């Protein structure tokens, strides 16, 4: 019983620092006309375009229900350098915990890391390539 309780505590504890993905932080994709695309989604599917011209969906972490997390949705101008060196027309941002630990683990595993961890007010970011050359963005939000 004690054993079982410990396990449960470990999996739901907010201090869990296992380096891993915990959610989706954003979906980005190429568009020929980003303005028109955003307007189409606003007009037909009710997307709220904010004052910066972007759309963010809000949700909460399963284990930290007090925090609201944004999920960024954004069409990018086709050919944007932001997705390079990936040749795909989409890029996914994954929300992670312990980004430093994760980057160390990925380096040990031989995964391609494209840049250094960049720190902003809204979190830390790094970019890597997956097994099939999709560039992905890893993001650890600020607590």
């Amino acid at each position, binding site marked *: 019983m004690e054993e079982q309780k410990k396990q449960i505590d470990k999996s739901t504890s907010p201090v869990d620092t296992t380096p891993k*993905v915990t959610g989706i932080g954003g979906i980005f994709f190429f568009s020929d006309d980003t303005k028109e695309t955003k307007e189409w989604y606003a007009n037909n599917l009710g997307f709220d375009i904010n004052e910066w011209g972007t759309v963010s969906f809000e949700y909460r972490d399963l284990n930290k229900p007090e925090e609201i997390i944004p999920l960024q949705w954004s069409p990018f101008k086709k050919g944007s350098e932001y997705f390079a060196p990936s040749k795909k027309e989409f890029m996914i941002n994954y929300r992670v915990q312990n980004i430093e630990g994760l980057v160390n683990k990925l380096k040990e595993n031989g*995964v391609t890391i494209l840049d250094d961890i960049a720190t902003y007010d809204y979190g830390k970011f790094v970019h890597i390539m997956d097994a099939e050359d999709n560039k992905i963005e890893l993001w650890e939000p600020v607590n």
Partner: protein
Amino acid sequence: MREWYRTHLGLNTNQYGTVFEWRQATDSSKKGFSQWSPFGEKTKYFEPSTKDFMINYRVENLVALVGALKKEGVTITDTMETYDYGKFIHIMDIEGNKIELWEPNDVEYEKLGKQLGSQTTK
């Protein structure tokens, strides 16, 4: 692909991909789920889109939404399918992206995941 994401990024994958589990912004007592799945390169599931990705959007009141989309002349690519875990329909956006609309029943969706013995990613 699923194995790579499990090994390196800690996704709890099963044969379909993974399910991200979270809580709703408007009511933290309610859970929400997002499906993540790599599809085989030759899948017909994304047709008639020629893109290499497809997004599933969670919606509310799908019946009324489809009515409005039809009036607005949006291309609907199939008819609505209803399952215990929600209603689905597929449409084309303004740039030829096929998109999946899902009005979820999150309670039933969670039950289904538990029946399958699947672990979510959270």
